[in-house]
């Protein structure tokens, strides 16, 4: 099933999707060009029925260029099939947001921004997800110091006790 999906993707967008291969767990994977990721994801969702992005994360290959790789796990609830897309992102390069395709990718992209420092363009609310705003650096980068400590911060004012700190415009 997913082999057919990857083949269909390559056929549909041959210059955006390249190097398809079968992953270790049997999932089919492919590399996607960074600028075309939204287009590929939209095709994957609308035409091929992959209606869920259960996980989006990143990998830091320190010493290689491009340095980072953002990994999108896509899942089709109808066909029970999985596809993995990998996007190579260089240091300081911006990643287009796929929240317009899958709303659930919102927090994963914030996670990628928080932990790896990859700026995501077009994200509705790009803030740190896990660490506090005063935190300097990105802790899952390989060049983050192993015993890097940050100064403790004072308690922040909570404006909305039910929803916690955050902008009022969020959903």
């Amino acid at each position, binding site marked *: 099933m997913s082999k057919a999906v990857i083949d269909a993707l390559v056929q549909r967008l041959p210059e955006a999707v390249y190097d398809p291969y079968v992953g270790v767990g049997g999932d089919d994977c492919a590399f996607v060009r960074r600028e075309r990721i939204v287009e590929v994801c939209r095709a994957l969702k609308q035409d091929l029925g992959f209606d869920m992005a259960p996980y989006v994360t990143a990998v830091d290959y320190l010493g290689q260029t491009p340095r980072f790789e953002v990994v999108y796990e896509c899942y089709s609830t109808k066909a029970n099939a999985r596809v993995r897309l990998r996007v190579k992102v260089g240091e300081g390069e911006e990643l287009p947001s796929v929240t317009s395709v899958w709303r659930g990718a919102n927090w994963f992209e914030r996670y990628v921004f928080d932990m790896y420092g990859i700026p995501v363009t077009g994200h509705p609310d790009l803030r740190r997800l896990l660490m506090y705003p005063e935190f300097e650096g990105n*802790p899952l980068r390989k060049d983050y110091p192993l015993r*890097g*400590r940050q100064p*403790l*911060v*004072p*308690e922040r004012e909570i404006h909305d006790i039910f929803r916690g700190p955050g902008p009022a415009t969020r959903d």
Partner: protein
Amino acid sequence: MSSDLDTLPVIATRRDEAQSWLQKIVSKGVGWGRKYSLFQYPFVTACCGMEYMSLQMARYDLDRFGAAAPRFTPRQADLLMVVGTINCKQAPVLRRVYEQMAEPKWVMAFGVCASSGGFYDNYATVQGIDRIIPVDVYVPGCPPRPEQVIDAIILLQKKIQDQPHKLFDREKPPLPPAGR
């Protein structure tokens, strides 16, 4: 090595002696009362909480040592038990909970994570809660055996008994500075 206290002559008038004698009796009595009625505030953040639960249940039964009733508001508690890992984002909350407790108050670091950070030697974890608040008794272990905690409670009771207590204490104790 001798301190100045050993060499200086102790001069006390009869009035001082009488006062200190009465104060000692009062302090002993109040301390006796306080050490056997430790109302705890369990600040449970991690897996040590399971051990805390078993400690409170019938088999280990902290009620035997007068520390029976967990209060779920810090304003009614005497003993802050920090049970589990404290991360940097949580540190100001823990400090606020400590500041909300009424005097006199004691703090127990329950488990190795609260005592020293434990094996969470990383960017997100406070390396011991004594960087934020003063700690009276540390309990090692991951998680500590209930007997260890009972031992710590007995040690804390000994410490409370030896402390000077006053019937009326109008002095405001200074807050410790927040460290890293």
